[in-house]
C-alpha cells in the first residue's frame, strides 16, 4: 500500500470509530468534525449547538443532551472514568447547559442540571450530580459521585459559594441569542451523523 507516504489526517474519521445510534432533533447544530460514537443511544434535543472536535461517547451508557445546550470544542462527554462500570445511563445534560472548551464529563449516571456552566478544562467525575444553574469555573475538578446543590459556584480549586444574583432568566435568554448566531456560523450536516 502506498498509504504510508500519504499524509494522515488527524481528524477523527467516520470509519475509525463506530457511529453511535443517534436521536437528533432537526434544529440541532453539529459541526462536521464532532464525533458521536458508542453503542448506546445519543439523544440531542432541539437547538443545541455542538462545536468541532467534540467527542460524545456513549459506549459506557446513554448520553442525553437537553434543549439549547452549547458544547464548545474538544469537550469529551461520556469519557470513561478510572473504574468504568457499564450502565444504562451515561451522562444527562439538562436544558441550557454550557460546556466550555476541553471540559471532560465522565460517564456513569452523571447529571448536569439545567443552566449549568462547566468552565474551560473542568472535569466532572463519574456519577456526579450538579443541581440547577451551577457554575464550575475553569480547571475545576468534581470528584466522582459528588453532589452540588442548585446555584453552587465552584471556584479557586474547590471553594464554593451560592449564586444569589437571580439572573437565570437573563442567562437563558443570552444563551438563546448565542445559539441564533452559532446557527449561522457553524455549518452542519445532520445526515452525516444519522443511520
Amino acid at each position, binding site marked *: 500500500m502506498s498509504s504510508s507516504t500519504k*499524509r494522515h489526517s488527524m481528524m477523527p474519521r467516520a470509519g475509525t470509530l463506530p457511529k453511535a445510534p443517534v436521536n437528533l432533533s432537526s434544529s440541532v447544530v453539529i459541526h462536521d468534525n464532532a464525533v458521536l460514537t458508542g453503542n448506546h443511544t445519543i439523544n440531542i434535543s432541539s437547538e443545541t449547538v455542538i462545536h468541532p472536535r467534540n467527542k460524545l461517547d456513549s459506549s459506557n451508557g446513554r448520553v442525553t443532551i437537553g434543549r439549547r445546550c452549547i458544547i464548545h470544542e474538544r469537550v469529551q462527554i461520556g469519557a470513561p472514568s478510572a473504574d468504568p462500570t457499564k450502565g444504562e445511563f451515561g451522562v444527562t445534560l439538562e436544558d441550557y447547559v454550557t460546556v466550555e472548551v476541553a471540559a471532560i464529563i465522565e460517564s456513569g449516571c452523571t447529571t448536569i442540571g439545567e443552566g449549568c456552566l462547566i468552565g474551560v478544562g473542568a472535569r466532572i467525575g463519574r456519577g456526579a450530580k450538579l443541581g440547577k444553574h451551577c457554575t464550575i469555573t475553569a480547571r475545576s475538578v468534581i470528584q466522582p459521585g459528588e453532589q452540588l446543590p442548585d446555584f453552587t459556584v465552584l471556584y479557586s480549586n474547590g471553594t464554593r459559594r451560592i449564586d444569589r444574583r437571580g439572573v437565570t432568566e437573563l442567562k437563558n435568554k443570552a444563551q438563546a441569542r448565542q445559539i441564533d448566531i452559532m446557527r449561522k456560523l457553524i455549518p452542519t450536516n445532520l445526515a452525516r451523523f444519522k443511520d
Partner: protein
Amino acid sequence: MSSRKQVKGEYIETDTGNKVSRKANLIGTQHIMLGGKTVIMADAMVRGDLTRTASAAGSSGGAPQSNTSIFIGRYCFLSRGCCLRPPGRIYKGAFTYMPLRIGDHVFVGENSVVQAATIGSHVHIAANAVVGEFAIVKDYVRILEGTVIPANMVIPSFSVVGGQPGRVIGEVPEGGHDQFEMRDMYKTVGNNIPPPASPGHLAV
C-alpha cells in the same frame, strides 16, 4: 495558505515565514491573519470561523469592515493542543464574537486556552493556562502554568500572573525581558532543521 508546490514535511511554510503544522486545526482560515514567522504546532486549534456578526459602531460610516476574527503578530508560537478562540458577548441586544488580537513574540503553551480580547507583545503563556473572555493582557507579561485568568481581567505590563483565579503575583525583573524573545524558538521548528550547532537556550 501558500499555493506553491510544497515539499512534504510536517510543516507548511508560507512565503512570510509562518510554519503551520499539517496536523493543526485551523477552522475558518480566511478569517485568521498571521503576521509572519509564526509557528503553529500540531493539534493547536484556532477558531477563525467565529467571526463578528454585529456591525461595528455607526462611526465607520458603513464601510465594509474586515471580518477577520483572529489577528496574530510576528514570531508567535502556538504549542501543541492550545486553543485560540475569539471572545463573544451580547452587544446591542445581539450576541456577537469580537476579534482576538495577539501581538508579536507571544508564546502559548500546551493545552492553554486563550479567549482574550487582546494579548500584547512579548507575552509568555505557560502550559495549561486559561485566559478568560475579554481579558486584556499588556506587553511583557508572564502567565504561569495552570493559571486561570478570569473574564474581563486587565493585566498590566511586566506582570507575573499565577493562581486560580489568576492574580498578579510579581513583576518581571529588570533585564528579564530578554527571555520573551522568540526568534530562537522559531528556528527550532520546521521541516529541515539543521542539528543544533551550539547548545542554544530556549526560553521555555
